[in-house]
């Protein structure tokens, strides 16, 4: 961190007059950040339990995570993992959906369940003094859900309605389209929450079977963080899940068996024409990398320069210099197989093409020129700041540690994350960009009639799909 200080202030002193109050006072010596050491144990039934004690406000966050998620959805039943997880809290062998909601909320707790890529989860946020009681609900919904037909029907209808709203929101729709563009017919290509068509195909038997197959202690991780000792947390884990057993043999994991991603032949430019869209959503996207890829840290640093935080290149060029958007940024999503990279901005329809062009220029700039140290050092500080802030809250600790555990990475990675980031060189960033930033796809959702002639000149080969012709269930994105 010392480097940061020197560079920032050296720059400033060069332009500012000398005087007591005309330059910012220099910072004092920094105090080091305390990185917690998680307690880590596997119960005899195969459930891995990780505890991160933290002092402060008497709150505890916990997450029971199943190492299988949306990547295991059958092709015609997109959204099954998420439906299954969401239905857990909608009734067990002893409690109705209403009793679960009421019991949990009376404790001041909040329970949440759902599926991501590579995982499904039940999360609880609880006060320290009633964490044990809150956990009885978590254990019950994980182990004894009933998937009643009326609950399945209700949730399906709600999800279809919610999807109808998302499909009219340019930013949401652009995400759905981008996944199809990058992954085609591969498992990561569908929407995690499904489509109106795929949700119709999901019956109670599907959810019950998904649960029976994947919800089992040897396919699960339980992570707890907050004002609790490892011994107390381990005892609660033992009480909640110690006698939990899966049904039959543990199947091979869907994603480990391959097929989540599909190789793309050539980059596409796809425009979804949404009449009267209030803004255009622009996404520049391609396949990124897996969480376990050795280039993970380099990718984080490269992305921090390009699109993480307020002063990244994308926000600097699009928002700060040109006033073209409320915010622009980029991110890698890390999964078991190569997750996607997204660079995004929303802008008035008239400037959609210009913004897509700026994003492409910034990407190619990263591949051709080394990032100067004066830029690289503060961008690394952004990553380290995010890391420090995540460790401040129990929910942040849980998600950081759970991600390591999910992908079988050593929990000790936490203790050298700071030095790993600091060790990335400008050459490594350029090398990474050269491999990972070319050949991007462009997805734009907006009111096409306002895009203007300039757009057609810039993207002469754009595939234009009217909203009414869009089919998210098909890799071509077009209705037959």
């Amino acid at each position: 961190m010392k480097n940061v200080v020197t560079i920032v202030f050296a720059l400033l002193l060069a332009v500012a007059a000398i005087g007591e109050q005309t330059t910012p006072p220099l910072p004092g010596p920094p105090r080091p950040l305390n990185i917690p050491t998680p307690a880590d144990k596997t119960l005899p039934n195969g459930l891995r339990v990780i505890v991160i004690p933290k002092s402060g406000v008497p709150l505890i966050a916990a997450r029971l995570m199943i190492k299988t998620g949306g990547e295991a959805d059958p092709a015609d039943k997109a959204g099954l993992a998420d439906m299954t997880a969401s239905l857990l809290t909608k009734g067990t062998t002893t409690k109705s959906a209403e009793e679960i909601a009421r019991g949990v909320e009376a404790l001041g707790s909040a329970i949440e369940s759902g599926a991501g890529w590579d995982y499904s989860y039940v999360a609880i946020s609880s006060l320290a003094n009633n964490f044990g009681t809150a956990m009885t609900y978590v254990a019950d919904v994980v182990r004894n859900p009933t998937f009643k037909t009326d609950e399945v029907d209700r949730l399906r209808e709600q999800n279809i309605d919610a999807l109808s709203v998302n499909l009219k929101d340019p930013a949401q729709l652009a995400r759905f389209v981008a996944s199809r563009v990058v992954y085609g017919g591969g498992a990561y290509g569908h929407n995690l929450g499904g489509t109106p068509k795929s949700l119709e195909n999901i019956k109670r038997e599907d959810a019950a079977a998904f649960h029976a197959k994947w919800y089992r202690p040897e396919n699960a991780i339980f992570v707890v963080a907050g004002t609790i000792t490892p011994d107390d947390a381990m005892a609660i884990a033992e009480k909640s899940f110690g006698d939990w057993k899966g049904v039959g043999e543990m199947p091979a994991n869907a994603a480990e068996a391959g097929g989540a991603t599909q190789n793309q032949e050539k980059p596409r430019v796809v425009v979804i024409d949404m009449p009267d869209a209030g803004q255009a959503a622009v996404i520049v996207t391609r396949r990124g990398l897996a969480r376990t890829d050795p280039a993970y840290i380099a990718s984080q640093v490269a992305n921090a320069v390009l699109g993480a935080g307020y002063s990244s290149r994308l926000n600097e060029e699009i928002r700060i210099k040109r006033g073209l958007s409320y915010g622009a940024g980029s991110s890698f999503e890390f999964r078991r197989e190569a997750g996607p990279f997204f660079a995004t901005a929303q802008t008035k329809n008239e400037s959609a093409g210009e913004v897509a062009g700026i994003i492409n220029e910034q990407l190619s700039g990263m591949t051709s020129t080394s990032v100067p140290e004066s830029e690289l050092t503060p961008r690394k500080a952004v990553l380290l700041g995010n890391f420090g802030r995540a460790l401040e809250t129990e929910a942040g600790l849980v998600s950081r540690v759970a991600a390591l555990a999910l992908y079988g990475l050593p929990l000790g990675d936490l203790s050298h994350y700071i030095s790993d980031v600091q060790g990335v060189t400008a050459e490594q960033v350029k090398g990474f960009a050269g491999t990972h930033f070319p050949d991007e796809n462009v997805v734009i959702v907006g009111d096409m009639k306002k895009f203007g002639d300039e757009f057609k000149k810039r993207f002469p080969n754009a595939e234009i799909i009217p909203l009414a012709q869009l089919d998210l269930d098909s890799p071509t994105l077009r209705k037959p």
Partner: protein
Amino acid sequence: MRQRLTYLLAFALTIPLAIPLYGASQLDVPSVAYRHRTLPNGMEVYSVRDTSIPRVAIQVWYRVGSKNDPPHRSGFAHLFEHIMFKSTKHMPSEFFDRLTEDVGGENNATTRDDSTNYYEVIPSNYLETLLWAEGERLASLTVNEANFKSERDVVKEEYRFRILAPPYGRLYYSLDKDSWQVHPYKRPGIGSIEDLDASTLSDVKKFHSTYYRPDNAVIVVAGDFDDAQLDGWVDKYLGTIPRPKTAIPRVTVKEPPHKELKRFTEYGPNVPLPAAAMTWIIPDARSADSAPLTVAAAVLGLGESSRAYQSLVYREKIANEVEIDADEREDAGLFIAFAIMSSNHKVSEGHKALRKEIDALAQKPVSEAELTKAKNQIIANILRERETNNGTAFEIGQSVVVEHDAAAVNKDIRKLQAVTPGDVKRVVETYLVKGKPTLIDYESQPGGGAK
């Protein structure tokens, strides 16, 4: 933590089957221990020391918000907030980002109806640096035409981002516009494209000199610091800023009681499911009725166990989403209930069902168990807010500016805990049953009826 046991009562609901007793003891949270000083120039200083992590949060609150937007300049207080990140006498534009983001910190600001708050969360060895920087932008904001215009374009994109692009953006935009009859709360804080376009650099200068002055500011520092050092730095960088002699203009308009029900229909272009909204004027945040109204909103709409969720979303399946909120402000508040309808259900069904739940709460007192549940949900949320230094600092700033009393940060929890079933029944009857609501139908229409 202090604990008080409450009755374990059976929960009476429309389902007459045997529902197991449920009960939870009423939650309590530790008080926030803060220190207070008033500087000779009128600036209020609050601090909460917690050295467990080497970080510190600074919040600077100004008693100026969207209600103070100049005439024909709706959205100006918010646009001005953006300008506060531009250059000062001794700092180039965006220098706050150099002092925060570039060293592992963060900063942002929010304009509300009654106030504008700016914050930084930084490694604690940067506290002095940021106190200097806050003093800089309070004392000597400088901004040029190019910076002003480009930031105004950003705010116009923010308007499109929040109002025009999301399917229900125009509904949120309409709530204040339709609900208030005379109070300036009726002007949406995000403004309009026309009013933003009409604003000039001279508006910026005037707004800064009118409202951005030490006697209109409150600073809250929470986290890792030394008391004596903090006092010294605050005196040096903020205490030396002169207090202008002129008076600070205040909004004195009072919203009269609404004499009749008003009805509006608003449109958006891409609205797959219509929505029903109802609002009522409620007292200001300092009112004794504020806590019971907060509890009433929670009983009705907080979480999946709430009455409106259970009725409209779960049992009747007429709505896909409900939201109920007692939005308490400095001059008067707005009680808001809205439902995004399920497909094939009409807005009129939403209004009727929301009304039915409200009437039921006025007819029969809520049970102790249901009351305790609602209080625990609210109190646990406050505790979650206080998990970070910045959250604690926010709560103190909000208490000082909106409730005119920092001690409200602790008193409000006592007030919530003291709310009785009779209190809830009375406020629902007084403000929501006898009060005249504004009803908004939100429907789909090509073009959306807005620019």
